[in-house]
């Protein structure tokens, strides 16, 4: 199964693997959302949306609909 950021639970982490979807704005990449970077789900608003992320030290919030397109590999420990 392919995991995306939308699958993360609060406090969980993953490594970004693919950001090639057309639905991901360039601005997000510029803010550090790039393959190989670690992403942690810091907090979610009610209904899991938007999602507050820590991507390699960059703290930002995105909507679930965008988060669905950022593919990750789950990190189980650490």
């Amino acid at each position, binding site marked *: 199964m392919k995991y995306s950021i939308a699958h993360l639970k609060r406090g969980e982490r993953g490594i970004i693997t693919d950001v090639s979807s057309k639905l991901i704005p*360039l601005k997000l990449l510029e803010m*550090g959302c790039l393959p190989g970077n670690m992403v942690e789900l810091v907090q979610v*608003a009610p209904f899991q949306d*938007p999602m*507050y992320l820590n991507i390699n030290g960059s703290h*930002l*919030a995105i909507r679930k609909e965008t988060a669905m397109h950022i593919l990750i590999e789950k990190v189980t420990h650490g």
Partner: protein
Amino acid sequence: MGKQINVALIGNPNTGKTSVFNALTGLNQKVGNYPGITVEKKEGICKLPRGVKAHILDLPGTYSLNASSLDENVVIELLLNKNDKDFPDIAVVVSDVENLKRNLLLFTQIKDLEIPTILVINMADRMDYKGISLDIDYLEERLNTKIALVSTRKKEGIEKLKELIGAYKDISVKPCLNASEIDKAYFDNLRQAFPNQLLYKLWLVITQDVNFGKTSRKEIEDVSNFKTKSKADLKRLQQKETIKRYQFINNVLKVGQTIDLNNAKDLRIKLDRIVTHKIWGYLIFGIILLTIFQAIYDWSSVPMDFIDSAFASLSEWTKRQLPVGSFTNLLAEGIIPGLGGIVIFIPQIAFLFLFISVLEESGYMSRVVFLMDRIMRRFGLSGKSVVPLISGTACAIPAIMATRNIESWKERLITILVTPFTTCSARLPVYLIIIALVIPEGRIFGLGYQALTLMLLYLIGFGIAVFSAYLLNKILKIKSRTFFVVEMPNYKLPLFKNVALTVVEKTKSFVFGAGKIILAISIILWFLASFGPGENFNNAERIIKTEFVDQNLPQDDIQQKIASHKLEHSFIGIIGRTIEPAIRPLGYDWKIGIAIVSSFAAREVFVGTLATIYSVGSDEEETIKNRMAGEVNPILGGPLFNFASGISLLLFYAFAMQCMSTLAIVKRETNSWKWPILQLVIMSSFAYIVALMAFQILK
């Protein structure tokens, strides 16, 4: 005396760029607009060592040179246009020590433009706290730049920065990396087609959505021997470029920066667990809002009472000191009360701007965006609409400009259309004086009735804004891509200097902006109220004296009757009575009618107008409030400002579109007359209907 050095301050949002600007320029700054657009332009003068002066331009915050908003466009437009009078001799990129990696992306882009560039690493005081150490020499060498470690909070590093600016000629213009490697063939072609142009500049021109300066995109496409790429291909290249830049930055920072995570403390995450919590987050937000309204009402009442009576005495004093005549009357009855009507609201407006700037400076606003996004989306808005809706409580104009970072056009348009419903500071004067007249004092749970009424009015404004957004979302058929990215900056204790400067700057522009209109209108009104045509006005004294000759009225009463007879038959009285039938069902008399008409230009004129109308012909030293309280309804009897007519007026002002400047901004931001006209017609007729119903039910 050499020429001034042109300095451009550039940086990501939330890096403390404005603090650096304030530290460099002190009070030597002015805020204006870029010609033709409404982006705020902040510039100032900085004195460098050896008598050299630098002109500092504080550019809008941007994450990169790929513009996605009008604000960001300003940055690119300036950097691409060598002929602009503000074109920088030197660029100062302000970065935040905690987000150095991300900040360096913009830095490497600017270096590619071959402009001498200094890197400021701000918030250096937080390095120990975050366990960060930097090898400055190494970074300077790899980035081909000079670095100033600055802490605006501790006032460190500013002198060093000034020295570097002074020696700008020594700073390298060599790029840090060769970004054209991402597609060698493409860039080689580009270079051949335009041998005289800077490659990166061409690339920026090609990839931006807007045309800039002389090298427009069209020009590039027209050259037959150069084929540009499809939009999707270009975007893929931009992605590659970003990745390439980050690779370079990562390599540099691997050596130049060490972060000891054991020493790093992250208060932000702990705080955010609570501040953005599903329940606590909303509770905290509610408490903050409640505090703000209580403060605006309670804390500012002392200086306001003082200003009110000071202006009344000033007007009286002027009358006594100056020789009797038209000019004295104009001053004492027209200008002074009119100005008093605006000066009195300085305390409240200052408080409002104080709170808003503290919320923004501290980083809390982003948390509100996060908390509210899902809820706002249900109404066709974005979480980012919360910022305009909250700053709309200060003024709709900056609020509408603040919608620019909303990525979806539909969400942005709806936000623009509904923002004028929020209670702006210009409504405050109207609300305050009417609440003071018709709502009793007294408290419940420690909160004053009057403060609660005010809060209720804010909530009504907000509620109607959200409700009409919901309707617009259903009605408007606009397809637009939505995406939403918001940075959650670290919490910061707001710098006193920044907050103070914002408060002073905004209050000043409110007072002077509104002051000019009010001054003009109060002079016109005074003329209209002091002169009139025909028998009834010119012979008022005789008419009244004959009429009441049999009744043995005291001299004062006679004078009063003469004055009001004159006013009724003055020019303004005639205009007022013409429109009276339209507003009588709302519970207003013709004087209120005049105030409403004249406040079409700007709402706050309402109070000044009433003050001027009531002052004309009155000899007593009285505050505006007391004069209004003494007015009697000519038909129903009893006080004119009673509960029913008061509520009706409050509701009218809550909904009516009484602000020309807002309409002008909406026109500019939506680029069409359709939206402002729609706004005007719908809001004002809605206001009329609601006020009518309120009065008819309550009377």
